[in-house]
């Protein structure tokens, strides 16, 4: 493909999106491997399956999507991951969904994709917000009016944001010995999963890094998965500017597996964002467990871990698997004496970001995740591990088992908690 010189950003994005996804449909050999791995079509006939909706139906679309059932795709990305031919099936589906919803975007989908706003609104009134979201009659009203299922998992609001903690905490006393890193916490890591962010930062500082946490906003993932490409594109480019302000050429670390995937490949491959700022950030960002494993492979990770005697279920989220880096958390957990991590072997927990919150998809999401909930309960009724926030909320809510990021055990094994 020839380079292009148009100055029109939207035009460029269409062009780039086409190069990466649409062109790949030619490679489909109809092997049906994606169909056999799709966790959604396995539990409901409402979704016609990734091959049908992706490389097949795409040939029948021209700028409009008449097959509204494609919205039953959860965007878990499993189809793209398992395709032996490199067809970007999930990306095709996400693009078609954006076209389909362009003129009738439900208010609900706009609301639930404003993740930063939710955090900002809930933090100052955390106890009230948490109580309200646990109050059945209110949830029934929300389901009726907004379309979020009454039993869907909701984040727990915290009284302190990560920024609040960073301001108030005692500055690290040890001088950095390994240089600087930029930390990307994501919306959840800033407002709801503050503990995960704290522990990640403390582990990195323990290893001798200076951790820079620039002011940062949302990556736009929820907007992307709801088909709001224009807003999501503006969001991610703003975020790229903010992360780049943290320091030139510094490695960026995140414990938000899904947001990292958005920066690494989804914004480019699904929305066609073709911008040098994104290219810069996407090549510098590392998942925290990936980073720790890289250090270990280079012989630079201290393994003077305390023994923790625990058998713990570990679930690798779809959006982490889609990053094509294996399961670094499993490898790192193996380094901790006494830890026996059992990989779930389940494709998806069902939530897929905001999919499982929606009232018309809640039951599907629960059916998708049921084998995982059963496995978690049977393996350890007190603790499960998973790398991404909404998946943790889903597993915890549906299995009743407390679910943490794998960094939780690393933090403990270094004696930091």
């Amino acid at each position: 493909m020839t380079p292009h010189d148009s100055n029109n950003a939207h035009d460029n994005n269409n062009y780039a999106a086409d190069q990466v996804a649409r062109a790949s449909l030619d490679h489909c050999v109809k092997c049906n491997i994606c169909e056999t791995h799709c966790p959604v079509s396995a539990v409901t006939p409402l979704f016609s399956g990734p091959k049908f909706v992706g490389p097949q139906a795409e040939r029948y679309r021209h700028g409009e999507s008449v097959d509204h059932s494609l919205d039953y795709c959860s965007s878990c990305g499993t189809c793209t991951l398992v395709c032996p031919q490199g067809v970007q099936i999930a990306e095709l589906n996400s693009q078609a969904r954006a076209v389909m919803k362009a003129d009738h975007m439900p208010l609900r989908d706009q609301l639930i994709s404003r993740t930063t706003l939710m955090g900002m609104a809930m933090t100052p009134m955390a106890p009230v917000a948490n109580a309200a979201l646990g109050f059945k009659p209110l949830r029934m009203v929300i389901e009726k009016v907004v379309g979020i299922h009454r039993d869907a998992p909701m984040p727990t609001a915290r009284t302190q944001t990560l920024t609040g903690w960073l301001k108030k905490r005692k500055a690290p006393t040890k001088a950095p010995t390994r240089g600087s890193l930029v930390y990307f916490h994501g919306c959840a890591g800033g407002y709801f999963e503050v503990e995960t962010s704290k522990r990640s930062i403390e582990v990195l500082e323990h290893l001798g890094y200076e951790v820079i946490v620039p002011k940062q906003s949302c990556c736009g993932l929820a907007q992307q998965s709801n088909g709001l490409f224009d807003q999501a594109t503006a969001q991610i480019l703003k975020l790229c500017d903010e992360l780049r302000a943290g320091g030139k050429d510094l490695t960026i670390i995140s414990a938000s597996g899904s947001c990292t995937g958005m920066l690494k490949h989804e914004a480019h491959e699904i929305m066609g964002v073709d911008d040098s700022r994104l290219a810069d950030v996407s090549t510098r960002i590392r998942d925290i467990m990936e980073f720790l494993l890289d250090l270990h492979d280079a012989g630079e990770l201290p393994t003077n871990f305390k023994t923790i005697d625990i058998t713990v279920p570990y679930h690798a989220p779809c959006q982490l698997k889609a990053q094509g880096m294996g399961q670094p958390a499993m490898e790192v957990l193996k380094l901790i004496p006494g830890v026996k991590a059992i990989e779930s072997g389940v494709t998806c927990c069902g939530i897929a970001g905001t999919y499982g919150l929606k009232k018309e998809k809640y039951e599907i999401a629960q059916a998708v995740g049921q084998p995982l909930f059963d496995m978690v309960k049977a393996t350890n009724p007190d603790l499960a591990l998973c790398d991404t926030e909404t998946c943790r909320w889903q597993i915890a809510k549906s299995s009743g088992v407390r679910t943490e990021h794998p960094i939780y055990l690393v933090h403990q094994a270094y004696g930091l908690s």
Partner: protein
Amino acid sequence: MRTLSADVVVIGGGATGAGVVRDVAMRGYKAVLVDRVDLGQGTTGRYHGLLHSGGRYVVSDPHSASECAQENAILTRIQADAVEETGGYFVATEVDDPAWGDDFARGAAATKVPAEEISVSELLTLEPRLNRKISRAFRVLDGSVDGWQLVWGAANSAKHYGAQILTYHRVTKINRDGDRVAAVICRDDKTGEDVTINCNFVINCAAAWGGQIAAMAGCHDVQVVPGAGIMIAMNHRLTNSVINRLTYPADGDILVPVHTVCVIGTTDQKADDPDKLVISREEVQQMMDCGELLVPGFRDARAIHAWAGARPLVKDSRVGSEDTRHMSRGMSIIDHDSRDGLKGLLTIAGGKLTTYRLMAEHVVDQMCEQLGDVRPCTTANEAVPGSESGKTYQVTHRLHAREEDRLDDQILCECELMSRRQWVNASTPSHRPASTTCAANCDSAWALVRAVFARCGPPGSRWRRSTSTSSGRPA
């Protein structure tokens, strides 16, 4: 031996023959159409899929340009279900002289072919896969048309007016009674029976095979030169509108979205025998290069079929007999009374699929004149069966239908989006195919679909053109 009688026998079941039999029947004649194989199996089913706006001929052949513009509007109205109103563009790539656009604009105005120049940035927003080095673009009313649907639409209309359509009836002889045509003798290739059709008039619509038919009536040396062109279908639509090069007509300068594929073409090589057309490696490479010029990355896209068709070009003394590219695209009617002293036989050839209805009108007008009848043509006034709603085809139709019935009916073939019900309804009880899903995109399923229809008659819905390679077959 069966014997039939008719006022008029039409030989050849391509678009021209189907148009002629419809016209004849609508004017109240008792008509029979015969074809040696199925309808549209010669050149009609092996063409590019383009419903011309006329833009292509505004400079080189202004008369054809005006005819195309008028017939495009008529066909979109009377055969809506065969036509997709894709719109089209004429674009100047980096190897085309942008100044030619001025000639084009003048020609379009003179021939009344609707055309407007648009900005390149607008073009690239509408068709983002196009070459970014395009320097000029004109929007025209090109469309795409399903040749099978077109020919069956006309044939069904003719049947409605009492005509008989006899497929797999191969003409073996044309009997004369003195200086008049008396009968057409056919062999029914499905039963092996000979069929005599007594008639007053014969219209030879056998196109590239027209010389062979005329010779059966003792009219020799009718020179219809097969101008062979190859086309290549790509796996999906790389553009959603017809893309033409803004230049004097040449090889490989048109890309047409037809159903779910897009077709690049074509070439023009004189062929000796319309049954033995060759798809050469060189021509295939030439087409891929031409595609690459319009849509960068074309060569990396997946080609699924190549085929060749034979244009019926009537030999023109003004151009050399080897130069089929510059033989007239206009229609020619050969009156065998003045040429050969045989009354009751007209041969029509040349022309274009877009103007098939007009060709029929002209030849049937001439027949009426010779018969001394005053019966005006009404084919432009009435929609064919299936097109009464006036709603044109859209590529999304079948996806929309499957969206509606996906929970009630199993989808057997995802490439062609065929449900079990469609499959079962298409096949007769004795020939019901085994339920099977396809494994390629999609030769196996397509072959089965074709096999079903070969047994059961016309397709009830839209199918891709014949995808078999190499030769066309004569009437």
